[in-house]
């Protein structure tokens, strides 16, 4: 009971980056517990995926050739069966949209405690210590537990596993109870197309919850006009229907890497940051000194956007 089982993520024929990050996170835990790191690849072109995942520190890779795409029922059944076979100390999955659709079900089926969205993991011979964020990243907590557990890791928190490994790659004969599969994926759709592709913009003026009201967007439009910039937004502004989906920066929207990104009234939740942290220069205008965006920014103005933005427009008139 000291091994680690990490179940990787893939979608539409591609392994997602977090799959390699699971190798680093899993290896770190395995070193602490003195166990082996096992990976599981479920559905899709599993042999091709397994070859790519055979990186330094991976001891074994189990492939399950069943179906093409993620199905939470299949993932739950397979992970549960692999757990019974391997008796690992900890099970790791991605804290992705798909990861959180089966990891909690596995926890229920196996009566294991679950900790989600880990940003750091430490273990000794009996205790797992997980660091996670609360209050939208303003506060960090650690939680501890004893005994086996399942844990989902935040994407882009661990480096991707590298090198070439010597893992045993083995087809795992899972028994899929098809009568118990109560959901089926009919297809996928790309959303958020439209007149403007914010990924092409050199300068983005990005507006968030701090704008308070749809009418106040005029101020942001004036600023974008003055700078010759394109307007983008964080999720709450799009959820409110004030700007269309194709303007949304973040994990579920568009990833942008402009020369200059001006975040106006955006707190900088992790899902947003995932979509803009590659920007060359980041400027934040926000009243809250503890907002995560104030750390990510190269330059920050801790003040009311309704005072700062008009003054900035004035500069260019």
């Amino acid at each position: 009971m000291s091994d680690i089982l990490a179940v990787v993520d893939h979608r539409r024929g591609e392994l997602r980056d977090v799959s390699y990050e699971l190798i680093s996170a899993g290896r770190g835990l395995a070193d602490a517990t003195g166990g082996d790191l096992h990976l599981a690849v479920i559905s899709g072109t599993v042999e091709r995926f397994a070859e790519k995942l055979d990186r330094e520190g991976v001891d074994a890779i189990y492939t399950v050739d069943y179906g093409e795409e993620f199905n939470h029922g299949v993932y739950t059944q397979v992970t549960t069966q692999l757990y019974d076979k391997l008796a690992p100390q900890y099970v790791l999955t991605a804290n992705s949209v798909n990861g959180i659709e089966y990891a909690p079900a596995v926890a229920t089926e196996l009566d294991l405690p679950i900790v989600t969205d880990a940003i750091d993991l430490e273990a000794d011979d009996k205790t797992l210590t997980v660091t996670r964020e609360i209050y939208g990243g303003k506060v960090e907590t650690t939680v501890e537990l004893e005994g086996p557990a399942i844990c989902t890791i935040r994407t882009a928190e661990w480096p991707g596993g590298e090198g070439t490994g010597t893992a045993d790659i083995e087809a795992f004969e899972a028994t899929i109870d098809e009568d118990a599969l109560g959901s089926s994926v009919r297809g996928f759709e790309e959303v958020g197309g439209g007149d403007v592709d914010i990924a092409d913009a050199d300068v983005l003026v990005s507006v968030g919850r701090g704008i308070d009201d749809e009418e106040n967007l005029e101020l942001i439009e004036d600023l974008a006009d003055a700078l010759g910039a394109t307007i983008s937004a964080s999720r709450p502004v799009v959820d409110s229907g004030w700007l269309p989906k194709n303007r949304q920066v973040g994990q579920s929207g568009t990833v942008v890497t402009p020369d200059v990104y001006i975040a106006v009234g955006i707190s900088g939740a992790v899902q947003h940051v995932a979509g803009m942290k590659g920007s060359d220069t980041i400027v934040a205008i926000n009243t809250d000194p503890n907002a995560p965006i104030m750390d990510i920014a190269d330059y920050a103005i801790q003040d009311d956007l309704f005072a700062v933005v008009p003054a900035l427009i004035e500069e260019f008139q």
Partner: protein
Amino acid sequence: MKILLAVTEVATVDDAFEIEGTEIPDQYLGTDLNEWDEYAIEEAVQLQEADIAAEVVTVTIGPETCEQTIRQALATGADRAIRIWDEAFEAVDLLDVSTKTAILRAVVAEEEPDLVLSGVQSDDDSWGATGVALAAAVDYEWAAVVNHLAHDFEDGTASVRRELEGGVEELTTVDLPAVLTIQTGINEPRYASLRGIRQAKRKPLEVYGLADLGLEESVAESRVRLTAMSEPERESDTTVWEGTPEEAAGELADLLRKREVVQ
């Protein structure tokens, strides 16, 4: 159909706050209806208005002080509310996913809803796991991070879209009964009307403890313990422009000119 709506009151924290041990003192905290749940409530109310949902019942795990938040859900349209609290919860600083699942499982067994709706996660703790954990516990089907739900349930199924990363949506058919975790943006939550607020005061709100649900007190003892709380370390080398708004704007303008963003 009958809908059970899991509603959470979340804690909010002021811009400036302090941490004492594993707690933030009450003076820096406020409360609010969980943002994701607002969308789940609106979805349930729309199904009610379309005569698809015959009854909408809310369930909340929380102390008496959160009844104001529960009344908000009732004012928007839910028919009645259940609140679960027990003295045993007051001694613990964290109710983990297994504990919440065990409690909600007992409520589902009692109410037998066709559909359970909850927000994807809570604003404060962001566990994002209880809905799916519950579905597995009560042997319901489920879908997580739903941003569209078709308002016809042909052949005992729900047709949903799940919001994946990178602007991709998954189109999925889910057998009923099911638990759906609702993503923000699925609809436009309404404000409660004055009439709704008045009516909410008269709607039934039942309160149960662990024993009422046939559960042992040990359910409250989470296997996951909160052991530390801190402000994240500031590793950044952010340059903060001080001064009046005009002075700070002047600094930013200089940078933009230097970067040749604007002439």
